[in-house]
């Protein structure tokens, strides 16, 4: 790779990383503000205009707090766990295409950090690695609440990762590729060309699985405050706790972006052909991607303040007895349809 190509990649990595972190900050603020609004309160509105600087104040608070390492923890693993959770969470965004290809300095620059051939597998693999962080944090803390939290997250992972993967398979079948770029391009064109209209069942399964994957209500059994104090991060304080927090929100950002990419046409603006519109098309496509992602991020909060938590056995039942068979049937139907149409 030549120098300019390397530079462009560096800039893209920086932009995507900053954007993700900023979105995480905004989400921390939005979470509190939206929850307050839904409960008839105002929420934080004192720091900066409309309280927009609140996450910065929160961040400073986290940095200033005493960093406690409790007695009896398994120190290396205890220190490693937050990083094990945060790094995969931030890495996932690398393969998500957030806009069309633009021409910069006489070369084609796709608005995506890395166009992997196995994009979806990469994402599924990384989100699974993230759960190791939770489990290890729970185990290394030497606390029963943390341990139960970690245990629950591993059980939750097994029951939902399958359904999630299988629901994605039907999307892959339609696009014929694991490349996220190809999947997005496959959804271009006419009005109802997004996968959500072609694969509504897969979309619903994926959406539910994503909530379990990111440990959000109604599936936040791993940190269920009322039962487990804080779940896997009970024994963590200061910046290490903040890392768990950041990782959780970064996971949400990635999950929202992935939902948009797989089912809502990614950067596709309905009824427009962005790729032929040059710079304007690129801007429009990025805007459309941001808007769609923002909606799904709002949905995360919206759902959190609407639905109560599932019980442990209900979660298992839903995962194994409902979503897994549904996903399998969906693959079967999609595969059958594709076979029949190709035979014709």
């Amino acid at each position, binding site marked *: 790779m030549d120098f300019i190509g390397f530079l462009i990649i560096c800039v893209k990595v920086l932009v995507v990383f900053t954007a993700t972190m900023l979105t995480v900050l905004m989400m921390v603020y939005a979470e509190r503000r*939206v929850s307050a*609004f*839904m*409960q*008839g*309160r*105002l929420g934080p509105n004192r720091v900066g205009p409309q309280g927009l600087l609140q996450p910065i104040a929160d961040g400073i608070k986290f940095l200033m707090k005493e960093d406690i390492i409790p007695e009896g923890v398994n120190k290396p693993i205890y220190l490693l766990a937050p990083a094990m959770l945060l790094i995969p969470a931030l890495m996932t965004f690398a393969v998500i295409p957030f806009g069309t290809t633009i021409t910069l300095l006489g070369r084609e620059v796709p608005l995506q950090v890395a166009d992997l051939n196995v994009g979806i597998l990469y994402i599924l693999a990384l989100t699974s690695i993230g759960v190791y962080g939770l489990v290890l944090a729970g185990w290394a803390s030497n606390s029963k609440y943390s341990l139960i939290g970690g245990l629950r997250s591993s059980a939750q992972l097994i029951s939902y990762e399958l359904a999630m993967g299988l629901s994605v398979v039907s999307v892959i079948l339609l696009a014929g590729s694991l490349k996220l770029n190809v999947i997005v391009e496959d959804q271009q064109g006419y009005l109802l060309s997004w996968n959500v209209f072609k694969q509504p069942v897969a979309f*619903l399964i994926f959406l539910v699985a994503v909530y379990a994957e990111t440990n959000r209500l109604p599936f936040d059994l791993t940190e269920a405050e009322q039962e487990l104090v804080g779940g896997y991060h009970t024994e963590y304080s200061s910046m290490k706790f903040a890392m768990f927090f950041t990782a959780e929100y970064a996971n949400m950002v990635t999950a929202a972006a992935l939902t948009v990419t797989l089912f809502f046409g990614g950067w596709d603006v309905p009824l427009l052909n962005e790729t032929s519109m040059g710079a304007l098309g690129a801007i429009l496509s990025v805007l459309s991607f941001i808007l769609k992602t923002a909606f799904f991020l709002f949905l995360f909060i*919206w*759902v959190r*303040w*609407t*639905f109560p938590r599932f019980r442990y056995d209900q979660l298992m039942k839903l995962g194994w007895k409902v979503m897994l068979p549904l996903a399998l049937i969906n693959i079967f139907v999609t595969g059958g349809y594709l076979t029949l149409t190709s035979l014709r």
Partner: protein
Amino acid sequence: MATIVKSYEPTFWDKLYLPALAKGLAVTLKHFFRKKVTIQYPDEKYVPPDGYRGLHRLNKYPDGKIRCVACEMCSAACPADCIHIIPGPTPWEDGKERYPVRFDIDLLRCIFCGFCEMACPEEAIELTEIYDFSNYTRDDLLIDKEGLLGVYELTKDTNYYSRPNAGQESEALTSDKF
């Protein structure tokens, strides 16, 4: 006799759960756009309704004479024993014979039950709507006759919290209300 309650048999539509989920989301979204109930206290102040039992005041006649005749009915009625009156002969030519030389209320002991205003035959002592009169020392929470008459001046015309320039001078007033 036992009544047989037939349990609701969920239909297929119910078992999908999706309509119920959508309904729940609609409820929270409706609340999202509703008017917020928060009163941002030091900036905005809650205006208590008439009959609120807050800080006491001593009423005056329109000509400026104190209504109180130092009968000590209020201090007798007081369950917290917080009203202390020293009576004396009235300084004015006409009207009542008795007059409170001292009229002290220990706000730290007062339970704001309103018995004093019910016991008063002259409608001289009254509880006002003022609720934010916390202070830094115990001494500042012993209110004397001048203080009580001052509270009367503050509250005789309008509700203390809905007066025109409410909020701007309130901090200053808190400290030298008495």
